[in-house]
């Protein structure tokens, strides 16, 4: 589906083209990401195969500024640049916009010439949340042609923004959540804001609170629509050829 984005999305292929084919290991993976939730949208998804030595985040640690930008506003450009620096193979925004509740997207990732990119990570911001994101962190890629691996993905909180649950900005460090298109339509307004503070480190998201009014109350999130129980996403990856 097509929707306006919160942030400028750097176009895909930037990373893919940087990986020059040397015809050593031409491993092609087919990757499907499904949004399992009833009411949460995913912002542009970042799918990446990277070396074991790198990771996008670590639970219990402070989020990088790049992860913060993704989790608070859906901007994956910083993470993409970080990944380029370690010669990762990435696919940006395979769903070409928001991935709706219950929807899925399939993409192909080719680690041609980069046999060291053995770890799969997938992240995207969850809307409406302040800094919630889906986080598949350094999962193993299949190693045999035809082999499929399935990962259930949990919701994390980047720990960089207070979960006040009201509409606001997607810019890092600014309060509130962005509410593009269908997210805005399903969210309330005029919430007074939940008294919350920045947590400080990446952790499993404790879920949204929400309220029961679209026009008042403490939260602009709808308790009956936007709550979730983990997992929030399912990632299947098949090694198609090598």
């Amino acid at each position, binding site marked *: 589906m097509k929707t306006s984005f919160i942030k400028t999305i750097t176009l895909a292929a930037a990373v893919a083209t940087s990986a020059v084919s040397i015809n050593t290991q031409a491993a092609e993976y087919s990757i499907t990401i499904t949004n399992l939730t009833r*009411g949460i949208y995913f912002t542009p998804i970042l799918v990446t195969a990277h070396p074991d030595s790198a990771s996008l985040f670590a639970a219990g640690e402070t989020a990088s500024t790049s992860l913060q930008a993704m989790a608070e506003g859906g901007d994956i450009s910083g993470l993409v640049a970080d990944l380029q620096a370690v010669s990762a193979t990435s696919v940006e925004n395979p769903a070409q916009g928001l991935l709706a509740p219950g929807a899925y997207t399939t993409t192909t990732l080719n680690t041609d010439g980069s046999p060291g990119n053995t770890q799969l990570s997938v992240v995207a911001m969850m809307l409406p949340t302040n800094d919630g994101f889906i986080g598949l962190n350094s999962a193993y890629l299949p190693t045999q042609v035809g082999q499929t691996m*399935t990962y259930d993905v949990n919701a994390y909180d980047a720990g960089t923004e207070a979960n006040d649950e009201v509409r606001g900005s997607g810019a890092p460090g600014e309060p509130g959540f962005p509410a593009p298109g269908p997210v805005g339509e399903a969210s309330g307004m005029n919430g007074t804001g939940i008294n919350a503070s920045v947590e400080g480190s990446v952790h499993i998201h404790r879920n949204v609170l929400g*309220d029961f009014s679209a026009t008042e109350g403490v939260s602009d999130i709808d308790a009956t629509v936007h709550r979730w129980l983990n997992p929030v996403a399912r990632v299947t990856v098949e090694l198609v050829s090598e």
Partner: protein
Amino acid sequence: MKPISLKNAALVTGLSSVLLLTGCLEDNDSDNDSDSSPEPITYSYEVTTVNLTTGQPLSPLAVIAHAQSYSAFTIGEPASSGLELMAEGGDNSQLIEEAITNGAFATVSGTGPVAPSGEDTLTFELTEQEAQTAVVSVTSMLVNTNDAFTLVSGSLSELAPGETMALNGLTYDSGTEANSEASNTIPGPADSGVGFDAARDDIADQVTMHGGVITVDDGLESSVLNETHRWDNPVVRVFVTRTE
């Protein structure tokens, strides 16, 4: 993060079986067995499902052994009529009929609900050929909800005799009934209200994961549920044993 497969545990317990198998192969070198007429081999399975919730009795379990090509639902797609009937009212009969129509190898239903912390054990048999490709699915409604259900599947093809595999079941929302939690909409003992209603009035006519219940204790004043009816995933643990 590791791939979701609880079969690792099963594989460990299966080591002894592998050794036995090796012994059999050596014995077969003498070829004595090849003269006897091939008798159809029956594969027998025992499925024990434990209710992990505090306040959600499970409707009678449906255990379905089927080919990999069958699935009782797909995330993002509308629920079948049979799934709707089970998810809203706990009646699994039509879902089982649908599975049989789709070529299910074996089906069995529990005879009563499974209370919180309770369990139920059901058995079924497959032919050797069926067992090579079979998947077992266990499904049931969380009866103190509008239309929440659990379904968990596991492949039977590598399960050796005596081996047990453990599966954890997540909770899905059939997307066929609004999660009002209102009086007379929930069939379980919390309400004893209407279960199945053919109207599809959820936010979208599609199966997704379930977000849990809100309950009156968390501010949904019109809810007949209280905090004891909440849950977290997983809601069932299923032990599948190949008994022979």
